[in-house]
């Protein structure tokens, strides 16, 4: 029996086990939407903006480990989803995006709502396809899912012209895929792994540096075994949070620009860096020439281009983290003995000293303005037993969330790392909630970034996605303000938001619930009320506007040279700060 392209599309989604499709219609994809309307296997979540659809697919993918799927129309639909694709590309998120295209006969004619979808998406997708013949559609979709989810995962775009979705073809779904130019290496080189094991046995000051690759390959258990067996401290990247239990005694927390003191010091003074599924991003290395000056480097990554891109590597191992760690653990199990513990005792003494010298710190006065760290800390303590999924936007609140929300398991942390996309958090949280209707999904946001995809509140209400948004509302693009205070002599160029909507009323206007924390004493009660609500909730928390996020390594700085608190001149400037509330911030600015 012959099926139309639109029907083939739906059949393919079913074969791939897709239950949820984040989508927004338009002229050239109407046939597909018409068919979606007549079936029940794939739920369509109608978003308000294509960027939202893209981030929802990302959130879905990060929380489930499976491909997230979105469908957009041609022209502006496509250009709107580009940010989400670029975000997914940077953070290696498996997303399959379907875009509508004008009929093949019109391609290149500057038709209504035409865009060069392939050209636009080429630099921000792992691969993209233009389907010119309906007979190729099924095989193309199979390849798209295969490419998105294997090797180093990433977004794949499938561009479907209108006439292809209407034309008919016999439907057969291929069982397997073979692409001659694409064969990701899964198993690591055995000799190299043996070298790594020997280096680990000998090291006096080793450090594990783990990233998002551990999360995506599902290697947390293997990592835990490795760390516990060898008693090596674990630094996590922003993307790697949750790969290792945050409260584990071996956890150093996050490293990098706003990483913990001990994480960065341990990295700088180590003699062996064991990088697993991390890519030596500039937010981690600081100044590359002075990065880990005393260390040998082992680098495990499935993507060969990540190795030696930024940093010299002594023992490169190309392969899947899980497979490599299994092999490595097997060797170490036979060789590890009590000697390493003695060998590394001075290292651990040093690390404990660092931990005690400069733990993460902030000062919350009982009657004073609410400190953002306090909000994250209480939110963490109130929800940790419910194993929540936590999404964030980008900025100060993201860093505080990374520091104070100590995730126990992987796939709970949805954040935009590489691209740093403000507006990511809320739709990503919704994507995760769509995958896990019964779980608690939190979105920690800033008052600046939440406004970048606020429109999706309508989607949350319509599709009954009861995400809990906690806005750390400081009236600023806080991270920008922090840089201006530290590096631009306190000139707040366009970082003061000036006017911010009443988020409580805004939530209510959408049919969601809005709550506000008026003083620090009310924090727990309001958070509890929000957590007990079965609707989407915005909790607006006006926080102290001049709080800065520390530790901080200035861009291009060296990892052991952290700024740990406000410099004296900044403290002076803010000395009246204790009384500051968002309402009278302008008076402080001019003071």
């Amino acid at each position, binding site marked *: 029996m012959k099926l139309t392209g639109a029907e083939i599309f739906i059949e393919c989604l079913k074969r791939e086990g897709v239950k949820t499709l984040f989508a927004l219609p338009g002229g050239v994809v109407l046939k597909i939407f018409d068919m979606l309307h007549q079936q029940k296997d794939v739920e369509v979540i109608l978003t308000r903006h294509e960027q939202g659809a893209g981030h929802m697919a990302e959130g879905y993918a990060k929380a489930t480990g499976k491909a997230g799927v979105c469908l957009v129309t041609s022209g502006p639909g496509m250009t709107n989803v580009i940010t989400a694709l670029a975000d997914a590309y940077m953070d290696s998120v498996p997303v399959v995006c379907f875009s509508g295209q004008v009929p093949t006969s019109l391609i290149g004619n500057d038709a209504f709502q035409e865009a060069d979808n*392939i050209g636009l998406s080429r630099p921000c997708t792992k691969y993209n396809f233009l389907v010119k013949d309906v007979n190729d559609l099924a095989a193309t979709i199979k390849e798209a899912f295969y490419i998105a989810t294997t090797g180093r995962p990433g977004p794949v775009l499938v561009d479907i012209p209108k006439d292809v979705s209407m034309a008919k073809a016999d439907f057969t779904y291929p069982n397997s895929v073979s692409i001659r*130019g694409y064969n990701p290496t899964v198993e690591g080189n055995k000799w190299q792994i043996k070298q790594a094991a020997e280096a680990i046995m000998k090291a006096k000051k080793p450090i594990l540096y783990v990233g998002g690759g551990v999360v995506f390959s599902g290697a947390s258990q293997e990592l835990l075994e490795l760390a516990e067996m060898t008693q090596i401290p674990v630094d996590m990247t922003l993307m790697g949070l949750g790969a290792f239990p945050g409260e584990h005694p071996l956890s150093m927390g996050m490293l990098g620009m706003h990483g913990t003191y001990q994480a960065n010091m341990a990295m700088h003074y180590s003699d062996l860096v064991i990088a697993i599924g991390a890519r030596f991003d500039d937010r981690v290395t600081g100044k590359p020439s002075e990065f880990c000056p005393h260390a040998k480097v082992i680098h495990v990554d499935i993507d060969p281009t990540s190795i030696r*891109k930024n940093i010299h590597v002594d023992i490169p191992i190309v392969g899947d983290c899980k497979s490599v760690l299994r092999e490595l653990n097997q060797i170490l199990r036979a060789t590890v003995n009590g000697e390493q513990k003695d060998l590394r005792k001075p290292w651990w003494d040093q690390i404990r000293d660092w931990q005690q010298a400069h733990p993460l710190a902030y000062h919350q006065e009982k009657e004073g303005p609410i400190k953002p760290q306090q909000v994250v800390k209480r939110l963490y303590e109130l929800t940790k037993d419910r194993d929540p999924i936590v999404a964030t936007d980008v900025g100060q609140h993201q860093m505080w969330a990374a520091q104070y929300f100590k995730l126990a398991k992987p796939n709970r942390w949805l954040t935009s790392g590489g691209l740093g996309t403000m507006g990511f958090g809320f739709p990503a949280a919704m994507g995760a909630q769509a995958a896990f209707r019964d779980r608690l999904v939190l979105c920690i946001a800033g008052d600046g970034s939440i406004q970048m995809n606020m429109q999706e509140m309508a989607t949350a209400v319509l599709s009954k996605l009861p995400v809990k948004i906690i806005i750390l509302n400081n009236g600023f693009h806080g991270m920008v303000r922090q840089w201006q205070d530290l590096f631009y002599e306190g000139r707040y160029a366009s970082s003061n938001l000036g006017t911010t909507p009443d988020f409580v009323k805004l939530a209510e206007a959408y049919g969601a619930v809005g709550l506000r924390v008026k003083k620090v004493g009310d924090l727990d009660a309001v958070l509890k009320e929000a957590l007990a609500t079965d609707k989407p909730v915005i909790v607006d928390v006006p926080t102290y506007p001049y709080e800065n996020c520390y530790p901080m390594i200035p861009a291009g700085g060296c990892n052991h040279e952290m700024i740990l608190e406000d410099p004296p001149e900044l403290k002076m400037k803010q000395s009246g700060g204790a009384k500051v509330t968002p309402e009278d911030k302008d008076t402080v600015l001019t003071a």
Partner: protein
Amino acid sequence: MDHIISVTVENKFGVLSRVAGLFSGRGFNIESLSVAPTLDPSMSQMTIVTSGDERIIEQIVKQLNKLIDVIKVVDLNETEFVSRETAIIKVHTKDVDRAEALRIVDIFRANVIDSTPTTYTIEVSGDPKKIEAIINLLQPLGIKELVRTGRVAVAREPVRQAAVQAKKNARE
């Protein structure tokens, strides 16, 4: 130093833009690039001449390998190779210059492939130094147009292996 990278790719729409986009997006140099189908029409062979230090070349090779439409990448500088480039040069030739032009063509074992009363069109192949040399000599006559193909290259067959093969063939 120039590096010659030989890349076997899928012969399909959009592949050239993926390769070119990789170079421009990551700030790598392309000195020249030539593409044509191989014996197997489903594949094309690209010869890319690029430059950079060891780390950049390593990245270029890895990034090329990462492209899904790329089937094989060989950094020819790691082996012995032979390379050629062709140029087609249209020169002005007044009465006295015509003999001089032909002399130069002769010296460089080039060919005249088109002729009008006032011009010669000359084809020359060789390594880039030879092309540069003939251009320098023809310049005083007045070059009207110049096109170059960019280099193509193949790895040399290892001599020992070739000798063994020849022996084997002789026996059969």
